């Protein structure tokens, strides 16, 4: 399992980075999405992999060892929502930039593609 998740993180990172280096704003936005998947999975992996142990405790005393680590989950939950917000902002900035400069190049001017 660990090796599969590591490979997944690796593939997502590599594809995301490749897109991040592209000259068109849309590509960069998609790259950031892929990168955020990779990072979120990585953070979850930092709590180690547990199956069938969601951190929903009973009403009695809870044994931390019996549940998946809730802390990375809380971190990632906010990260997911924030990444939606940043994507939205980027999309709007890209639209405005294209309207103002007439190109969707990240530098606002069409040099070499």
């Amino acid at each position: 399992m660990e090796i599969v998740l590591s490979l997944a993180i690796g593939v997502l990172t590599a594809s995301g980075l490749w897109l991040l280096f592209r000259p068109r704003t849309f590509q960069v936005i998609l790259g950031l999405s892929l990168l955020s998947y990779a990072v979120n999975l990585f953070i979850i992996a930092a709590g180690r992999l547990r199956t069938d142990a969601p951190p929903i405790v009973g009403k009695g005393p809870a044994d931390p060892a019996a549940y998946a680590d809730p802390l990375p989950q809380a971190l990632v939950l906010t990260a997911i929502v924030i990444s939606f917000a940043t994507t939205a902002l980027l999309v709007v900035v890209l639209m405005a930039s294209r309207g103002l400069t007439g190109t969707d190049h990240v530098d606002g001017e069409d040099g070499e593609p």
Partner: protein
Amino acid sequence: MHDPRLLLAVLSLPFLGAMIAAALPQAGRNWASAIAGSIAVAGVVLVAGFYPAVAAGEVIRSEASWLPSLGLQFTLRLDGFTWLFALMVLAIGSLVILYARYYMSPQDPVPRFFAFLQAFMGAMLGIVLSGNLIQLAFFWELTSLFSFLLIGYWHHNQGARDGARMALIVTGFGGVCMLIGFLLIGRITGSYDIDAVLAAGPVIRAHDAYLPALILILLGAFTKSAQFPFHFWLPHAMAAPTPVSAYLHSATMVKAGVFLLILLWPALSGTESWYLIVTAAGLATLLVGAWSAIFQQDLKGLLAYSTISHLGLITLLLGLGSPLAAVAAIFHTVNHATFKASLFMAAGIIDHETGTRDLRRLSGLAKFMPITATLAMVAAAAMAGVPLLNGFLSKEMFLAEALEAHSGTILDLVLPYLATLASGFSVFYSIRFINETFFGPAPVDLPRSPREAPRWMRLPMEILVLACLLVGIVPALTIGPFLALAVESVLGERTPSYSLAIWHGFSLPMLMSLAALVGGALAYRRFGRRLGTMDRSPVIGRLKARRTFEAVLATIVDAARLLHGWLGPHRLQVQLRLLIGTAVLLGALPFLFLGYSRGPEPVALIDPVFALIWMIGGLCAIGAAWQAKFHRLVALSLIGGAGLATSISFIWLSAPDLGLTQLLVEIVTLVLLLLGLRWLPLRRPAIWPEARMPLIVRLRRGQDLLIALAGGTGMAALAYAMMTRPTADSISRYFVENAYPKGGGTNVVNVILVDFRGFDTLGEITVLTIVALTVFTLLRRFRPAPESIELPHQQQRQNEFDRAEEDRSHGDTLAHYLFVPRIIMQWLFPVILTFAIYLLMRGHDLPGGGFAGGVTASIAILLLYMAGGTRWVESRLDILPLRWMSFGLLLATGTGMAAWIAGYPFLTSHFSYAAIPLIGDVPIASAWLFDIGVFAVVVGTTVLTLIALAHQSIRLPLRRKGSEEQASAPERSA
């Protein structure tokens, strides 16, 4: 009357006055000065009220906790010395305020002037009253800032701007050095408290870090007190209005450095390095200042250099390290403040009444302004050290100290001569000041015809000159007890016996003083005439400190530009390559040097389904990267595939909340990007004329691929190494154990979000709100590219078809497009909304919560928009996203603040169970209200963002010219 809390009033009153003055209208000159004056006088009274306690040897302290976790207290402290200093700051402050009322022109923004002046006064009091070093450094920087504002008050004047900037840079630089020095002292003594530091003197002096700390602190004091070689800023600061010079550049700001030296004298002095550095700097400043003062043509310039030289004298005295010298230093600090402030005021009156400060143009003013002339002459005589005036007494003490042997070096031998020489210079420029201004033939061709200054403008000068006389004639009855008090609090057991009498018999200092007076007078008689033709001082004038300063500044700026040119390429791609490349390299370094190994923990067996999911997910990611340029829609779908794999992984790995939220956010992100696609240009594959890619492009892509692959491999390796190692014991344990007992919820993730880390979540929803508002604002001014303005291709085709057919009207096809799914989508609205509320309600105990619920609710609204079109929805439903957002933020913050009412810290949650018939026990937690706030904010932001985007399509036809026909078409947005 010595409640320690009154100290806080003394400190805060000037700041309060500054705020009031700042709010006054420009014409409020009288009000501003009246308020400022009464506050200063009130300060004098309050401080004077502490006299009995201070005189009894008490150190008054008032403490409040400031940063207790760092061991820092906000401490105000008053002992004999700081009492005298505070009184001086406030008393001269009140006189300067009265003077400034008449000096400032009604055309200037006078309330602003008084606001700055009072704020400066407060900052200066802050330095004097500070009970710990960090606090002192804070007020120290504050004086630098306000002096910057005051020097640059006439900001339309280039000289004022330059002078202000120079003063700020020099004193600010010193302030930073001083702060580092204080941190070192704190490290040595373990405390920043001044009383503790003073008590730890021997420890500090014996410590290895003593020398660096000393040098750093001295840099702070020397830059502030304009000591050589940092003296050059002071003459340039003369561009300030004269009341500012009278206050800052004689009595307060420049005295802050001296104050610090005296304050820390018991702890830092007495070593060889102290003696060498401080004495040398003081001596150099004394001579350079006095020499340069002789050759100034500007009245204020002369006074500025004279101030430099007197500050040098005080520093020199402190450097000598003997208790008697310290007494002389404290005494001279007070004396200098009185006569120099009055001289600056005289210079201001002359400038005010004649329109010039040029010594070469001024002449014979004594006939026109006899009172001012008399007052200035007495003050100048005090500056020259004429007997029966206060300057004489402290200068006598200085000369006596100069004669004493202090170190056994050559300095002992030359000091008496140099001291006499400097005193001679002082006599020289004092005579020049008086003679060229007030005597000689009547002035010709002055900008204004000279006359006596108004009565109230002279009053502050009169008081100061009276003080000079009284202290000079009956020192023991006037300054005596106060000086004794100050000296005792600094020197403690080392207080020497000294006498304040004016006549000590024919002693050697007396002879030196006489020699200086006669020598100075003779020298003026011999050379005075020639000075008017010289435009810079001989010898010293060659040093050009100002030019050096500017050259250093220019070098720094150039270096910064160069560095920016290297490291800050204008192209984003290059920046990103550099950034990511560096990050990958740095991430790889530990592996390269220490080797890579997997950890000891066993790994779980690979589940084939999980592997298959990620095989698809990985292919999706690679495909998206491949296709993002030419096939945006395909790439978007593929990204969705990768996102789906991620969501499934979350659920698989026991994170149901994440899986749920990811899936929902995936949907809104998809809609968002689809809305954005509409505005992107068509991408044509044939870019290269020869139909093949140039080598350079291929190389660059190869480089990108390499970095991307290296980054991916690195992340995979890192993740694997991490997952095969045991976890450290983290705070998660606490969260799991206390989620139910303390948070009242069984869903630990939700309890963390809305309770344990509620403040983070509050911050996050604030960020969401800000982003949504930014999106909204950006889109209000949105101008699309010309080729995107046309209706989408499909809609044009549909409309053409409608026009061509007889029985169809415009827009019919569009209206019937996907009719059945649209009806279903509309019916789903209440269902999804109910589901959203269900998610919200159960969030505290089961997967769900405000975030997931909020996104679900916004999806319901989105579907409605997609089904019916923007206009259809908005004619039936008022969705007010801004209200949702503000309601949510208010509710979340209000829930947090409600805890205050119960006396708990912000965001403390409370929960209990309410028994509701039929439903049973329902947990009622305040965290749940907080979660409703989160829900509302998420709904508001998501809907606002997406709707603002969607609106762009229906806004456009209105702006377009010549196609009214299409403007009436029922366009759809999503």
